[in-house]
């Protein structure tokens, strides 16, 4: 720092009205709050309100609830849903824990492969899983018929409780594995060394060190699996048979009997346990403190031949089952007439003679998923940015944070039905006032736009939390430094924050795309007849008995989701090479 001359001072005019900046931020904060209000809160009001009215709109108080509780078949569905959810949670979290433990804490060979395979069913919609199960365990299934008579058959009585639990298990298992792997990875090797030095046995170490450190992850996994299995519609719709659950009851009431009042009532029964589970999880997670400090030493698993071999066998079995289901879907889609003509053909991909909309539905789904990914990512990221990095209006930012986490507790069917009540109503009656106003959003009903909106809201929370986590890792002083240079926040947002968050932004886009591709529950009440969708087509084909075509459509959806994921890896590799200079730290 010994130059010959000092630079001449620069004349900078800072008196321009940069205060407009504060108003821009307020404007977008308010806009974001309105979006969440219209997308999440307001639609729930007419839905809950509807459960207090009969089908002609007259106020009946708790009559619908009384009718529900005194109809044995309906109460039975509630019990069925609970049984399915609890059984699935036990299986998915139990086996998921062992699987995650094997991947993180043992020296088992092939961990990377098992990791990929274990998460494979993330890309298979529950509907497709159910279709696969039919071809494995259904009346004409590979296992039931013992490979078409060449072996003794094995009939598991797929349709009903068994089928639903197996399907939900495959759906929930990867979610549990992801959460538990994260929890098991966050550990401190020094604790284990201390336990060993103090002479604790392996079993004692497991109960005193391992379990307490993954406690919060385990709680989260349990609640996530419970909500997923309790509210899922796809699997029970396809393999439920006469075993009714809440989700299929809502569908039957609304679509089959046009009984919207009872549909709304059952929705409340579906909603309450989910909200309860969500609330408890939030309270428990708040008590979590950082277990892993900056000084923590990562645990290096030591070889233990007996344990490693047992774990390998276990993982091979579980992953093998997922692959079997996946392979069966593809195989079934390629067989000419299952089980009579086993020659291979692409005939099922023709979709000519079957309902559901064929390729038109497929392209509609891709279009919808793309819009969801693009608009959803922009809305979520800007929303998370304003909540995390915004200045001023602190109460509005905390309110937005809470509103952004609520959608996770809303079952897709409930969300879809709420949207029907809210957006399809030409006038809104304001409760308790007798006043009514014209519905400005009525024009959205039956359009692609509303399908995109319901998808964005349905998958909002996970994306919002991803964005928030990424933003928290960015130096909080960037905004301060920019302000000191009189650079408005939106320029720094575009020039620094977005480039630094690009991996998270793309991750959010993928998540939106894949989920919009496979979702069924939120859109089944909302899609208009002129906009057939691929996932809905699977349901319709299955209803019509065209399950080979349903398998073909499932294969298309899975291939598209996996393709997008691969494209993402390829794109980010290119991106990483380009920006290696500043990511190499």
């Amino acid at each position, binding site marked *: *720092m*010994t*130059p010959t001359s*000092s*630079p001449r*001072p*620069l*004349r*900078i005019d*800072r*008196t321009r009205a*940069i*205060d407009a*900046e*504060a108003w821009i931020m307020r404007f977008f904060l308010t806009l974001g709050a309105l979006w969440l209000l219209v997308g999440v809160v307001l639609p729930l009001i007419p839905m809950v309100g509807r459960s207090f009215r009969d089908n002609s709109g007259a106020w009946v108080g708790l009559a619908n609830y009384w009718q529900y509780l005194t109809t044995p078949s309906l109460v039975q569905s509630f019990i069925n849903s609970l049984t399915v959810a609890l059984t699935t949670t036990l299986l998915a979290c139990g086996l998921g824990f062992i699987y995650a433990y094997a991947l993180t804490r043992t020296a088992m060979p092939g961990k990377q492969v098992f990791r990929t395979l274990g998460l494979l069913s993330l890309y298979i919609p529950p509907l497709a899983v159910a279709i696969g199960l039919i071809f494995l365990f259904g009346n004409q299934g590979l296992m039931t018929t013992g490979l078409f008579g060449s072996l003794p058959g094995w009939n598991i009585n797929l349709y009903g409780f068994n089928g639903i639990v197996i399907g939900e298990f495959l759906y929930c298992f990867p979610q549990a594995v992801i959460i538990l792997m994260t929890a098991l990875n966050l550990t401190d090797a020094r604790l284990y060394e201390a336990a060993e030095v103090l002479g604790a046995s392996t079993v004692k170490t497991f109960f005193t060190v391992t379990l307490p450190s993954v406690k919060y992850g385990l709680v989260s996994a349990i609640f996530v699996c419970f909500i997923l299995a309790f509210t899922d519609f796809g699997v029970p719709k396809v393999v439920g048979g006469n075993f009714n659950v809440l989700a299929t009851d809502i569908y039957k009431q609304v679509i089959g009997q046009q009984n919207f009042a009872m549909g709304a009532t059952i929705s409340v029964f579906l909603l309450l346990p989910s909200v309860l589970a969500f609330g408890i999880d939030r309270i428990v997670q708040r008590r979590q403190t950082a277990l892993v400090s900056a000084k923590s030493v990562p645990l290096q698993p030591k070889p233990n031949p007996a344990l490693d071999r047992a774990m390998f066998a276990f993982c091979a079995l579980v992953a093998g089952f997922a692959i079997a289901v996946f392979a069966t879907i593809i195989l079934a889609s390629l067989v000419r007439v299952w089980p009579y003509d086993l020659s291979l053909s692409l005939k099922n991909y023709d979709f000519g003679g079957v309902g559901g909309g064929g390729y038109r539905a497929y392209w509609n789904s891709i279009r919808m998923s793309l819009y969801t990914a693009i608009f959803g990512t922009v809305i979520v990221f800007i929303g998370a940015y304003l909540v995390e990095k915004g200045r001023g209006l602190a109460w509005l930012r905390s309110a937005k944070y809470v509103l952004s986490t609520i959608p996770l507790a809303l079952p897709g069917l409930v969300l879809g039905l709420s949207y029907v009540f809210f957006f399809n109503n030409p006038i809104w009656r304001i409760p308790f006032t007798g006043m009514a106003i014209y519905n400005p959003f009525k024009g959205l009903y039956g359009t692609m736009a509303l399908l995109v909106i319901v998808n964005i809201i349905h998958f909002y929370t996970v994306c919002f939390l991803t964005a928030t986590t990424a933003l928290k890792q960015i*130096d909080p*002083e*960037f905004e*301060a*430094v*920019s*302000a*000191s*240079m*009189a*650079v*408005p926040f939106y*320029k720094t947002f575009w*020039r*620094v924050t977005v*480039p*630094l968050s690009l991996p998270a932004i793309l991750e959010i886009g993928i998540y939106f795309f894949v989920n919009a591709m496979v979702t069924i529950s939120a859109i089944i009440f909302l899609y208009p007849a002129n906009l057939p969708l691929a996932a809905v087509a699977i349901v319709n084909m299955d209803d019509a008995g065209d399950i080979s075509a349903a398998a073909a459509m499932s294969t298309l959806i899975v291939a598209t989701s996996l393709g997008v994921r691969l494209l993402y890896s390829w794109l980010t590799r290119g991106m990483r090479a380009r*920006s290696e*200079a*500043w*990511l*190499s*730290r």
Partner: protein
Amino acid sequence: MTFSEPSAVPNLGETTPLVPPIAPAREVEVDGHPGPGLGHRTLTEPYLRIENVHKIFGSFVALKDIYLNVYPGEFVCLLGPSGCGKTTLLRIISGLEQQTQGRVIQGGKDVSKLPPSMRDFGIVFQSYALFPNLTATQNIAYGLENQKLPKGQIATRVKELLDLVGLEGMGHKYPSQLSGGQQQRVALARALALSPGLLLLDEPLSALDAQVRVRLRAEIAELQRRLGITTVMVTHDQAEALAMADRIVVMDKGYIAQVGTPSSIYQHPSSPFVANFIGVMNFLDGVVEAADTVRCGNILLHAPSNEVPVGQAVSIAIRPEDMRVADIATDAPNRVEADVVSREFLGAGYRLDLTLSGNARQPITLEISANRARNLNVEALEALSIQLPPEMIRVFPKE
């Protein structure tokens, strides 16, 4: 603020009462400024005025009754332990934090309510907050580009600034490709890019390792003097503050404890807190015996700069390096005997832990040069005579 040499003291023995010399006239410091060498600034208007600033977070009072003037071209350090409010004060000066009460006046303009983007300052954070996806050049040009200056002018300006901080030819590198010290220089150049009237430094050196830190602190101070830019720096490192600042503001629990030049604060701390925070200080328990005499056990010490009423319990403070161990005349004032408890080799010298003779047996720490230690044969030393020069003693009333 100078002290007259102690006048001759009659030889009355070590434990007998000392006849106090005429106390040197003390200049009374108001608001701690201006110190020596800054006298001309009394005539200048302050560039930055902090008036009656309070900051309250919920029920926690972070700042209370803060008044401070910073003069044009001055380098002021806010120094204090963590949680003393120094960073909060810096953030209030920058507008990143709003004061609960009080005013901030910069360049004659009340900026109390302005957002940071409408104030005139450059800032360097402890983390540097360099944009990792932009090169050093792009980081420095960041604010300039927003001013819609011509490209050529920006390029010239950035080159000047890179030269200024000694990073010629490094402009194309990304922050992750630069060392900690180099990143710090980029952050400094970026803060200076818009020629701000005020430079704010928030613990700018604490992320660096010791050697780089010592070198950079001299360079920053030199650069600041050359540019003549009014600067406020926050630090918890007293050595840094002593080396760099024109004036130091010592803060404790949201209050300003003392303001003054480094040497005046070091030599004349206004409270035991300041005395202990800046450098090392010995504290002996005592009682004021007479106007200029304090009793410490059965030892009577001559303490001229003492304005505490007779009979008051006091702490008698003296720095470890201010005591004399050799060539003490037998009739020298405040000559006491001490036993060596332990000794610690410091490289350039020795630290001796002693206990004073007499019935109080109070511990006292002494630092001497290696040379002197050799003459005293410290390793074998069990007892020695030390002198607590009266002009080096500070007396603080006990609360």
